[in-house]
């Protein structure tokens, strides 16, 4: 069994969101970078659990990005995984990123590719589905559970207002979200070990981007809260009905 986990880098959840260069670039100054929470807490940890169950499992991580991503990749390796591959390409277009991951998956002969549900910066929720299509593999998105039984997978995925259990056979692409696993904290042994794990750098395949970011904008500032006295909550109901017209 060979598993590939897609790892992306995102600004820390508390990072200040601002833009430079005439609102075309995210202002990275002072920003703390983290492993995208869905990749770290759910996709990677579930993959590690599968490897713990079956130690013959080979577990690799993949990231598409420049060398500034290496610190994050090492952090992920500290949690687990045998080695990492970084495809040396800076791009924000989901299709070009997915094309690189699909190529790595094909070349490496993986059985299972995990992505997170979405990146918390660009919120695409797109890479997993694109990789699956490029590989012509089945795709189970927004999965909350995954069990393997030989080359068969049983999963639970989110549907509107509930969940659904599904079955598919490997090879398979899965996007993971809350429920899939419990967040882990890397231990000292993991952190030390991560330093010597292979981090291979691959060159990208040529792909034309389908989209680009023309600019950013911040939402209009709120007018400020209208406070209603605590001894007169009826006034709040009146305002919501007559002024805001939402109830």
């Amino acid at each position, binding site marked *: 069994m060979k598993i590939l986990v897609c790892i992306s880098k995102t600004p820390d959840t508390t990072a200040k969101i601002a833009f430079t260069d005439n609102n075309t670039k995210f202002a990275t100054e002072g920003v703390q970078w983290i492993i995208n929470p869905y990749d770290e807490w759910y996709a990677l940890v579930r993959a590690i659990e599968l490897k713990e169950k079956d130690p013959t499992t080979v577990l690799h991580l993949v990231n598409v990005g420049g060398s500034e991503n290496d610190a994050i990749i090492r952090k992920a390796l500290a949690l687990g995984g045998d080695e990492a591959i970084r495809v040396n390409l800076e791009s924000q277009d989901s299709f070009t990123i997915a094309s690189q991951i699909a190529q790595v998956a094909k070349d490496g002969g993986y059985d299972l590719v995990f992505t997170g549900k979405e990146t918390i910066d660009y919120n*695409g929720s*797109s*890479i997993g589905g694109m990789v699956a299509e490029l590989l012509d593999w089945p795709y189970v998105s927004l999965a909350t559970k995954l069990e393997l039984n030989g080359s068969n997978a049983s999963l639970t995925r989110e*549907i509107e207002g509930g969940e659904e259990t599904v079955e598919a056979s490997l090879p398979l692409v899965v996007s993971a979200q809350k429920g899939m696993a419990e967040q882990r904290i890397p231990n000292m042994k993991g952190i030390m070990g991560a330093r010597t794990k292979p981090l291979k750098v691959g060159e990208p395949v040529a792909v034309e981007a*389908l989209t680009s970011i023309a600019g950013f904008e911040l939402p209009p500032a709120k007018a400020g809260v209208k406070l209603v006295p605590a001894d007169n909550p009826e006034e709040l109901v009146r305002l919501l009905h007559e002024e805001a017209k939402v109830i």
Partner: protein
Amino acid sequence: MSVLVYIDHTDGEIKKSSLEAASYGAQLASQLGVAAHGLVLGTLNADLPALGKQGLQKVHQVKNDSLNQFDPGQQAAMVAEAVTNLGATVVVVSNNVTGKALGPRLSARLKAGLVAGAVALPDTSNGFVVKKAVFSGKAFAQIAVSSPIKIIALTPNAFSVTNGDGSAEVADINLTVPAAKIKVTGTNKIKGQIPLSEAELVVSGGRGLKGPENWGMIEELADLLGAATACSRPVADSHWRPHHEHVGQTGGAVAPNLYFAVGISGAIQHLAGVNRSKVIVVINKDPEAPFFKAADYGIVGDAFEVMPKIIDSVKKLKGK
């Protein structure tokens, strides 16, 4: 040329998010001066000609029960064939759970640029540029799509359903049905509740409510308003409420007309899931709670004293 809207359905009914996508697709089609068509894969009880009210001229259907079980690979192949047969240049899906699986597959298959999470109609004055939410609702990006075919996944509740008086022509369409690679073995829907992602009104509780036994007032207010219920992450993590109610950075994202937050501090990770709500109401006993900065209306007070009175006046308002 046409705009093709993928009509998503469940339990025989068209999802509200697809009615929004149909309304959006029809307005985009008139902006581009082309026809607006719909595509239904599977069988349902809903009145398909009524999609004319949202502005669709024609609805193509593949009547096949097996398609009611969703395999995004199978459906992407079918939608792609329909796009080619019908000469569609834009495909609109909802960015709901179905669209999040279908849109990207379709994009890779057709080499068609995808805007996942669009919140407005495209600007077509110079190219094709679509606004979408990024940084978990803390900002917007303008995405320029350069491919000949474009795919737009519309954020639920970001675009209003239009209700005209048209009637759509409904016709069978012949598409190859590839074998499904995903088998649905069971469905577990929470009965009688409004799915959070479709809700126009949401009442939500946080750790300030002290324990699951105090959720009666949240449920009662939600019931009276016809709202869905939600909660903060620690509340779901402590199993006071089910996980699917958790909203925020790592939970669901919602954009209802009203988000009514009780006993929630308004941490940045919580706001990330709710800051696109049109009106935010905050009930919190701490005047310094960060949520007040993001709120439109608020009461600084004890939820246990304030909520019963709010419920009473909503009852009066609703004549109950």
